């Protein structure tokens, strides 16, 4: 990633933190979702963009985090301790699961990662004592410092934004590091990377874990903000597909593109929801199809293409 787009994104995100000044709860809700989607899309970039492994496990991580957080907060844990704990547990279990899962390639990996969410959802459904099963789980107020609704919404907005900044910076560091270089090598030619001494299974497992940890933390914040979660909601397969669409929209393999893609995607989704409630999923599908057929390299490629043309002319 170019330095300019890295610092530009960070500056814009910090500026985005002024959103609560507008005192509009609708804007805050959109803001929280924008940050949440961006966290998912940027996290997915580590495994899907850098490494080239089509992971559909985002929904699994999100639901896992939401339920982890929900159960811990119900046990009286403070919010940030629950966020940290859920992140740590998600990282370790994703790492262990990754060691088994990343041996699969292509479609097999995609299905394996998709099945993780299905299994977790069914497990959550049947573990009624702990999770409330299909009835869902109520979560008590986790933020007691601010009494007003606006105050609570602003709090979660800043928390989500801070998490997004953390995610973005960590993913950028991964991209700069030896790990990121190894992942790109794996994407280009896995056998060759293995041959020259990249421990491919280890690298991929770590990438898989990093694609999960922040999503799980976002899940905790989501659960605490919503005060109610249910398996069908937080393990929704759309939560696994949307980050991919966002990353494709922005441009595969670029964290800044993923943030941009998430924000644009949310904007489109919101417009469609508002105007075509009946056919919103059809319009979403149409967007995906058009995007893949006509803009396969994402929006970040438009700028490149334009500057290339200008260069040719000049």
């Amino acid at each position: 990633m170019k330095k300019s787009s890295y610092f530009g994104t960070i500056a814009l995100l910090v500026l985005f933190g002024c959103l609560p000044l507008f005192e509009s709860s609708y804007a805050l809700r959109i803001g929280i979702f924008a940050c949440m989607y961006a966290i998912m899309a940027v996290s997915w970039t580590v495994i899907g963009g850098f490494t080239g492994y089509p992971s559909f496990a985002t929904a699994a991580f999100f639901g896992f985090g939401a339920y982890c957080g929900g159960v811990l907060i119900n046990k009286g844990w403070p919010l940030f301790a629950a966020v940290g704990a859920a992140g740590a547990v998600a990282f370790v279990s994703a790492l262990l699961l990754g060691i088994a899962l990343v041996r699969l390639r292509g479609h097999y990996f995609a299905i394996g990662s998709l099945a993780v969410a299905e299994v977790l959802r069914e497990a959550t459904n049947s573990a009624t004592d702990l999770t409330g099963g299909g009835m869902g789980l109520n979560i008590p107020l986790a933020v007691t410092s601010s009494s007003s609704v606006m105050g609570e919404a602003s709090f979660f907005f800043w928390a989500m934004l801070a998490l997004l900044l953390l995610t973005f910076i960590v993913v950028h560091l991964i991209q700069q590091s030896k790990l990121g270089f190894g992942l790109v090598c794996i994407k280009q030619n896995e056998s060759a990377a293995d041959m020259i001494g990249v421990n491919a299974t280890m690298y991929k497992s770590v990438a898989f874990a990093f694609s999960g940890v922040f999503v799980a933390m976002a899940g905790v914040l989501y659960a605490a903000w919503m005060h109610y979660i249910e398996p069908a909601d937080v393990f929704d397969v759309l939560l696994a597909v949307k980050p991919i669409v966002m990353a494709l929209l922005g441009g595969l393999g670029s964290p800044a593109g993923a943030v941009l893609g998430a924000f644009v995607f949310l904007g489109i989704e919101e417009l469609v929801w508002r105007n075509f409630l009946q056919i919103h999923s059809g319009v979403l599908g149409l967007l995906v199809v058009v995007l893949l057929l006509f803009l396969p390299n994402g929006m970040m490629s438009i700028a490149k293409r334009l500057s290339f043309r200008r260069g040719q002319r000049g």
Partner: protein
Amino acid sequence: MLVIQVLLNGIVLGSLYACIAVGFSLVWGVLNVINLMHGSFIVLGSYLAWGAYNALGLAPWTALLIAAPAFFCLGYAIQRGILNRVIAAPVLVTLTLTFGLDLMLNNAMLIGFKADYRRLILDPSLGTVSVGSLVVPTDRIVATIFALLLTLVLYLVLRRSRIGRAIVAVRMDRDASRLMGVDVPSIYAITFGLGAAMAGCAGVLLAMIYPISPIAAGSFLGKAFVVCVLGGLGSVPGAVVGGLFLGVMESFGSLAFGPEHSVTLSFGLLILFLIVRPQGLLGKRGFE
């Protein structure tokens, strides 16, 4: 006796699973495309059977004769018009593309048919067949027989016909078959059409047994996935073995743990197989 009854139920269920999965498996094996629309094709087939029975009075087995060519054309057109453009792209692109198309198709069905469950009720009802203390509803037996027949027909098409041999050749080595003069894009479209036709026919048969709703598309797709991974990819015998295996496992699983765990059981099997034996029961290693 209970064991035999459960085994029989498993075999009936398994033949239907095989019929659901065989087209999916063919498309996956030959085109290397996971067709996420497969579940919606099945549901659309069920609606076709429902409409044909209620509007025209055609029995489901007659409706098969309409469903097969109609779905073949639909599949052929989708492959020719849309999928062939990105067929060489990475897995992620084709997977997401069929997901987008499925969202559109499923949304269209939700608007067209609403989400309420519909039921195709044969009048007069076919009753049940009982041998000793074993009881099976006749409509299930009819559906099973037709499911196995359809699968056999597909197998014979792939084995005996010129086009079938070309499909198998493309599956084995795309570049070599192109050099031998096979028109690969056209074979792709025919394969996708065959897959869609199998899905539509499976939907017609399922309409005799299960209630029809667009929401069911996801669970049919899930079953197709599991069967493909269990049996091995892209071969008709693989889908049959995988389907029967899953059907029998689910039957006995329901007996042992209760029917609410059947989804967990099938996806647990899926993950186990992906890790331990990704080529499936009948698959050959390195041929995936």
